[in-house]
């Protein structure tokens, strides 16, 4: 079985300050991990993915995430938030050789001017 827990349902940051979105997963096997972003009234867009290569993964728009097997975590960070980062973010896990993705409940990011 696999599951994903996003530890914060809502994160509020000031523009120009760091963003941290926390994600823990449980899986009996080596997973693939993804972060997707959903802007208001838009479909989901892939930010980055981990597939057992480098543990620090860089994505689009300055985001990155680090896979920590010992902590079963895949936290998403960005050094400096921009107003356009206001959106909902989903942490997603998948097992090798499985079509299915398991989505976290989502974290809504608000950016204050």
């Amino acid at each position: 079985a696999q599951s994903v827990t996003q530890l914060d349902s809502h994160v509020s940051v000031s523009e120009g300050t760091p963003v941290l979105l926390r994600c823990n997963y449980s899986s009996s096997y080596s997973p693939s991990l993804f972060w997707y972003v959903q802007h208001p009234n838009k479909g989901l867009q892939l930010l980055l993915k981990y597939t057992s290569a480098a543990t620090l993964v860089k994505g689009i728009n300055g985001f990155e995430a680090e896979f920590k097997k010992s902590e079963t975590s895949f936290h998403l960070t960005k050094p400096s938030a921009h107003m356009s980062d206001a959106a909902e973010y989903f942490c997603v896990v998948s097992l090798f050789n499985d079509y299915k993705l398991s989505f976290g409940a989502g974290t809504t990011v608000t950016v204050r001017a």
Partner: protein
Amino acid sequence: DVKVTQSSRYLVKRTGEKVFLECVQDMDHENMFWYRQDPGLGLRLIYFSYDVKMKEKGDIPEGYSVSREKKERFSLILESASTNQTSMYLCASSVSSGGGLSTDTQYFGPGTRLTVL
């Protein structure tokens, strides 16, 4: 760019109606998926298809069926709509890269917000 389109952005139907949600992708992807998205629950997989006329149940298939007669089109059918099917429905597609299915990026459509009265 991959494009996944869904037939309607907003849909309002009455209880008991038969509802069709259509999804089309233009990148010749083998895999297509239907999810529903509800606040606090993330996305849950309803059905997916890995080839024409092939389908697999996801985590919440009850009350839904699907059809894939052509590679680019995947339809979700609510045989008799109920109020608990009011939700946002998202379609996605992915290519089978052969490198392990879990690594395949899924591309999402904009969603259809369905309200059942």
